[in-house]
Every structure is written in C-alpha cells, then in structure tokens.
C-alpha cells in the first residue's frame, strides 16, 4: 500500500446537532471533501483535498460547519517548519516544481504597515471632505516638457494620449483563463461605473467585453494571445507586460484544461492546448528593443493610445524604470513581489523580487533625479490592500495604484491560494461552468463599486486631514509620511523621516 506522507492540512468539524443534512456542502465543494453515503444516510468527510476556501462554511444554512487547521501537526521545529517538510514530501512524491497561487504569503516586512500618515493641526487647516470639494481625479500619461503657444498667442492644448481616472485605483491585469468570464464582466462593469480601468490581462479580450473598451487596458504579453489590430484598438490603453511581481523573470503557463471553447476563442489558440507565455518577449532582448515594441504598438494604433509598460519590482528597478521612461512609453506599472498570480512556482513567488514600497520610492526618486518624471506616470501594484496603502503609495510618488487581490476578495475570494487547481468554489479562478455560475456578475460588479467607493471616501477623509484637497498635491509629497520602526537605510530609500522627526 502506498504511504501518504501528508496528513490533511485542515479539519472539517460538523456539528451533528445543527446539521439538517441538506447536502448543500456536498454540492458546493468541488474538491470532493463531502460525499453522501446513501446506505448509511450520513455525510462522509475526507479533508485530503480541502483548501479551506470557506465556501461550505459560508453557505451552510445552519452554521453547522467549521474548517480549522488540523492540529495533528508534526513535532515542532524552529528550523524545519511544517510547511517546509510538507513541501519536501510533495516533491519527493512527484518530482515536480512546487506550484502556488496568489501573492507571497511569507513574513517579509510590509512597509505600508511601518509608514504613518500626517494630519494638520493648528498651523494649517484640515478640510472636511463632506462639505468642501475634494478631488481624486488623475490623468495618466506623458506630459509635454514645455507649453507651446500658437501664432495667435493661445496655448496649444494638444497632449499625448492620457487616461482619465476619477479615482486613482485601477483593476490590475488578470487574464481571462486564469479568472472566469464572470470576474471579467464584474471588473469591466465596475470600471465603467467608477470612471476607472480594468485590464484584460494577457489572455485576449472576450468579444462580449469590447463594449467596455473605453474603460479597458488591453495587455500584450510575450505570448501575444488574442493580439490583433481590433484588440489593440479596442482598449483605452495598451499594456506591455514585461514581468509580474509574483514571478519576475519567468513566463506564464495556462494549462490546457483551462482552455475551453470560450477561452480558446478569446486567446485564439486551439481548445485544450497549453497557453505558454515565454519568459521574455522574444523581440525584446535589450532596452532599445522595448522602444521598438512600444513604438510599433503606437504606429499600429495611430498614436492614440497611451502605452503602459508593466515590470516586476526587481533589484535594479530604478535603472530599468529610467530606461523605460526614455523608451517612448507613457506609463510604467511596477508590480511588487507580493503581487498575486493564478499560478507561479512557489520558490519564485516567495523569493524573487522586492517590495513595492521600496521599488516605488527608488523609481520615483531616480526619475526625478534625472528630470524625466514627467515623461511617464507611475502605477504601483503588488499588494495594495486598503485606501491607506493607496494614500501611502501616492505620497511616495505613484500616480495611481493597481489592485488585483483586493478586487478578487471583494468578489468573494477567501485567499485559499489554490487557483492553480482550477476548482475555485467561489467561481473566480476557474473555467468549470457550474463553478463560474456561482459568481453573479451583477452582484460582483456592485461589490467592486462598493469597495472602491468606500476607498474613495476614505482617501478623501485622509486627504482632508492633511489639508490637501486635490490628489495631485499628494503625489510624491513624502513629508506627509513618517516611518515607524525602520532603519535609517530603509528611511533613506523610502525618502521619509522617522516618526517624531
């Protein structure tokens, strides 16, 4: 008999007194944790495949279920954590690369949580956002170096293409394939209602969503899935994906099982084949090649769309960003190492890249030192969790933020980090029709609108507290931030003072 080295990670506790045997849990769990034994008329539980997504708990009408960490753990060891040992068991049993999803869960410093925001007292007034105007609109894109007057003395108001955001939060790239149709529909509708943008991700744009084009960023990744002239023209902007915070330096791989008829049509690849995005763009091996891709996209779209270049935050990010700012790109999106993913090798996700806070601070400083900050706008992503993170990112120097994980949580994601299995019980990271149906895009869209509307209110409250009534006066305004518990080196990189200074 084959020995199973791994005990289940979670334990399902069912309260026999409360259970009414409605069998909803049996129907809801796509991982097959629950089965109904007809002969014994009991619910049989096997936690082997339980991912603790809490779907059964949330839907149980009598609150009879509880999922908790299995306390049948290994002997405690300060060096060999239980996780480490489990991973070795998995690899020894399979010979496979460990594959994980969602953002880096390891305990690295979260600098957002070590930065505090200022407020006005006496020397200048705070502003009440409920009564006074409070502006959160931003324009992303290249700004001209100097104003030009026409012959009659009036100002030539023509500008390179800009993205207009009513709130400085955009939905980050999540491809159709990695997430479901209903997720895309929710994001698209919400972006439209909020006056912001969602991002098609690298899997093409479903024909049903071309109507949201004015609020869509279409992505061009190394796989070039679904990229054609109409696609490039469909969006308000084009994003070149050079890298992703969760997996810098490596490509993407959508397994063939997720490539059903609809995904196949959108990505323009045959059903059932893997969709592989090579690690690099094979037409970009050097910075001058990036310029070639940027300009080729502009030529193909008549210079009407801003081009975003998305890069993962890596050690040399400031120099990289400086190169991008001179490449003709209009916007740089930086994705920190805690950014989410539908699937990434565990070791890469957990060990490669740097925090967005440090990357953003260095990039903004570098671009200003070189006097080219107006060449590009900056979008920061890679675990923006709240409106406070947004405020801090903007004060460090971002023009806007990308949110991915936070948006998925709004749609019901419980961060069980099992997207790679394709059996998301919440209908998010799956292509299984019965599971996809569980996310009603009408509800999803409303929840996203609620989330961002709430954040916008909070952003205004915090801005008002600082005596700032327009978000552009917060951008790069690092005096509004103070560090707590940070070393001088960290403070220097962030360009902020310590609390009390």
């Amino acid at each position, binding site marked *: 008999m084959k020995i199973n080295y791994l005990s289940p990670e979670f334990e399902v506790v069912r309260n026999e007194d409360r259970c009414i045997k409605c069998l909803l849990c049996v129907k809801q769990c796509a991982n097959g944790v629950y089965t109904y034994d007809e002969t014994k008329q009991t619910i049989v539980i096997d936690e082997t495949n339980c991912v603790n997504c809490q779907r059964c708990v949330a839907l149980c009408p009598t609150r009879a279920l509880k999922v908790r960490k299995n306390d049948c753990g290994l002997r405690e060891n300060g060096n060999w954590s239980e996780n480490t040992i489990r991973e070795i068991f998995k690899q020894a049993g399979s010979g496979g690369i460990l594959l994980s999803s969602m953002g880096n869960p390891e305990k690295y410093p979260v600098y957002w949580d070590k930065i505090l925001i200022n407020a*006005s007292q006496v*020397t*200048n*007034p705070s*502003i009440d956002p409920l009564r*006074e*105007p409070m*502006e959160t*609109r*931003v*324009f992303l894109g290249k*700004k*001209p170096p*100097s*104003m030009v*007057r026409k012959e009659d003395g*009036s*100002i030539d*108001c023509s*500008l390179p293409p*800009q993205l207009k955001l009513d709130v400085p939060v955009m939905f980050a790239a999540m491809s159709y394939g990695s997430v479901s149709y209903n997720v895309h529909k929710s994001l698209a509708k919400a972006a439209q209602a909020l006056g912001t943008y969602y991002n098609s991700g690298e899997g093409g744009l479903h024909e049903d969503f071309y109507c949201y084009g004015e609020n869509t960023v279409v992505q061009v990744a190394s796989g070039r899935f679904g990229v054609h002239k109409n696609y490039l023209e469909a969006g308000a902007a084009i994003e070149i994906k050079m890298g992703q915070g969760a997996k810098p330096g490596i490509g993407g791989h959508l397994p063939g099982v997720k490539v059903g008829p609809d995904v196949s049509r959108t990505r323009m690849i045959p059903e059932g084949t893997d969709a592989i995005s090579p690690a690099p763009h094979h037409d970009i091996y050097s910075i001058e090649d990036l310029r070639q891709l940027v300009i080729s996209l502009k030529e193909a779209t008549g210079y009407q769309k801003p081009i975003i270049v998305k890069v993962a935050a890596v050690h040399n990010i400031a120099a990289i960003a400086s190169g991008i700012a001179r490449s003709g790109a209009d916007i740089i999106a930086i994705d920190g190492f805690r950014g989410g993913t539908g699937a990434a090798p565990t070791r890469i996700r957990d060990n490669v890249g740097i925090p967005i806070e440090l990357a953003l601070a260095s990039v903004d400083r570098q671009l*200003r030192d070189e*006097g080219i*900050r*107006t060449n590009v706008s900056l979008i920061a992503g890679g675990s923006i969790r709240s409106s406070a993170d947004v405020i801090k990112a903007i004060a460090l*120097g971002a023009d806007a933020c990308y949110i991915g994980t936070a948006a998925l949580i709004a749609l019901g994601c419980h961060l069980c980090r099992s997207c790679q299995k394709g059996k998301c019980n919440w209908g998010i990271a799956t292509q299984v029709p019965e599971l996809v149906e569980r996310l009603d895009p009408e509800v999803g869209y409303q929840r996203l609108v609620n989330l961002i509307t709430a954040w916008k209110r909070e952003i205004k409250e915090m801005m008002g507290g*600082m*005596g*700032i*009534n*327009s978000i*552009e*006066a*917060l*951008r*790069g*305004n*690092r*005096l*509004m931030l103070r560090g707590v518990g940070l070393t001088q080196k960290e403070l220097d990189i962030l360009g902020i003072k310590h609390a009390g200074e």
Partner: protein
Amino acid sequence: MSKLEGQIRIPSGCAISAVISKTGEKMTGEKIIESMIPMHERSNGLGGGFAGYGIYPEYKDFFALHIFFRDALSRRECEEYLKDKVEIVKQESIHVRKTPGIKDAPLIRRYFVAPMPCALAASQLDENEYIMRIVIQINTDIAGAYVFSSGKNMGIFKAVGYPEDVGRFYRLDEYEAYCWTAHGRYPTNTPGWWGGAHPFGLLDYSIVHNGEISSYDANRRFIEMFGYRCTLQTDTEVITYIADFLLRKQKLTLQEMASVIAAPFWSEIERKTDAEKEVLAYFRTVYSSLLVTGPFSIILGFTGGLMALNDRLKLRSMVTAEKGDKVLIASEEAAIRAMEPDAENIAYPAGGEPVIVRLKEGAY
C-alpha cells in the same frame, strides 16, 4: 543648537502688505513700515522683511546681490567664487541703523554685478539663468554665505525681528521705490537665522506669503527636477521657484500661472466655456504637480508690477484697495488704512482669483 531653515521645515504664519504706484511715482519705505505696525500680532518677532522695486536707478542694468555672511571667512570664499563668474561694478556694506530688537546681525553686503561676458558665452545660458545658477550654487555650497536678493533695480531687506524694527534697521526711509512689499513672520520655532526671514527672492521675483501649504513636498520634489534647490524648506521659497519656472521658463502669463497654482476645481472648470475648459484642463494635466493646496495668500513682486493671489479655498485673508494711482494690498484692512487712511474701493479677492497690477507703459 536648534536647526536652521534648510535643515528642518518650519511652518509659520504671517502678515503681508504691499503698495504700488501705477504711474511709477517713488515712495520711501516709511509707509510700508507703518503698515506692518497694526498687524504686529500676526508676527512673533522672529522674522520680518521688505522688497523695494526701482530703488537702484543708477545701477539698473546690474544684478544687485544682497548677501549675508556669517564671518570674514565665508565672505572671502564667496567673493573668490564670484570673482571668476561676474564683473563687480560696485560693492559695499549695506548701511544699517542701530535698532533695539535687532541683534546678532551678520555681515550684510551688496554687490552690483554683470555676468563675465566670456563665461556667459561659454555657459550657453541667458544672463538670468546664469545668475540664477550662481545664486543657487552659493546658497547650496558656500557655508555661511547666503544671497537673499538678486534682481535688477530692486532689493530685499530682511532680518530676525519684528518687521517695523527690520525696516528701521535697514533705513528703508532712505530708499525710494515704486513698489514695496512687506512681511512679518510667525515661525513655530526659533532658529533665529536671518536667511530664513521673508521676502524670498530669486532674480527680480520676490514673494511674501502667509499660510502653510499642504502640497509642499509634492511641489518641491517636482520643481527640483528643473535645477532649483529648495535649501530653505520654506513654502515661500518653493512658491518663488514655481513662479520663476512658470513665468520665466514656461512663459506663462501671470493669469495663467494663477490658474496653475490655484487651479479651479474640476467642477468649476466644467462650467466654463469650451475654450477655457480646454486650457484649464491642459494646465491641470500638465502642471498638476504645481498645484498648491492648503492655505496661502501671496504677493509676488516683479519688475513693473505685482500680483496677489489667494489659495482656491481662500483660507487666508487678503484685502485690496486703491488710492489715486496707488494699489494697496494687505492681510488686514488696518494695514492699508495705516498707509492711506482714505483708501477707496476696498475689495476682498476671491480664492484663486489673481489681482494683477502693472505700471503704465514707460513708468519704470
């Protein structure tokens, strides 16, 4: 030792006042000093100053550098530096009057200079940019030396003390100007450094300012991309550089500059005509990092005129009036009445609405 401006950011409240004769009629500094007396309570004795325009007619083609020196050593180092860069046609101590309440005066000297022609040609700069870089260089790199006035036919006079004492100390009653601006300062700690007093000047722009802006670091980090160095970390300094950048380098008009730093709200822009909308949206897109938020009232002096401007929410007070060919502006009406008891057309400019006064053609 407490930190000086430049080493730390010091918020301060203030009083401001200005008078200008549209026909270019000369006025001694007496009246502008008097205007500061009723606003004594708005200052706390830690800084006062004045700017006068048209005061050096015999040297009007030369940049007048007013410099504070900590000691003879810093003076020697600075003069050594200047020697290679500019031709000095006259230099002297600025005459002062012993005044109770003004202490710890540094060496205060005045140099009338012109760029060294061959150095200017080699630099490929125009003379304004050339002098601006020299000023920034001295203020950044020569310890103990600080250029606090650098325009042509104008001068800034400032010190630690109450403004009325500062005015008497500098014998402003002996100068004649077609335009005066004044400032009394209420800083929130006590560095006691003369360079930190106001007005702040660069070339012939001078600014007096009241209020603590909330956009400071956003403005500073943007403007420093264009060669400016905010060594003092004061609001006035950054606003002066913004004015210089927008007016001199970007060639905006005063009205346009006001639409940048005190930009109308989007909701207001949407109510404008299409042509206005286009320009205002352009400014808010291109110069968004130069929007100044938080309370401010400023008076910008320049050759041949001045401009007064409030922040767009009008969080600071400002009053304007006229008397004959004179326009008077101050934080309080009392200051105006101290200069001209019978001033007329008292008005209260709206937030973000600039008051621009220019001398009549040929009047200066």
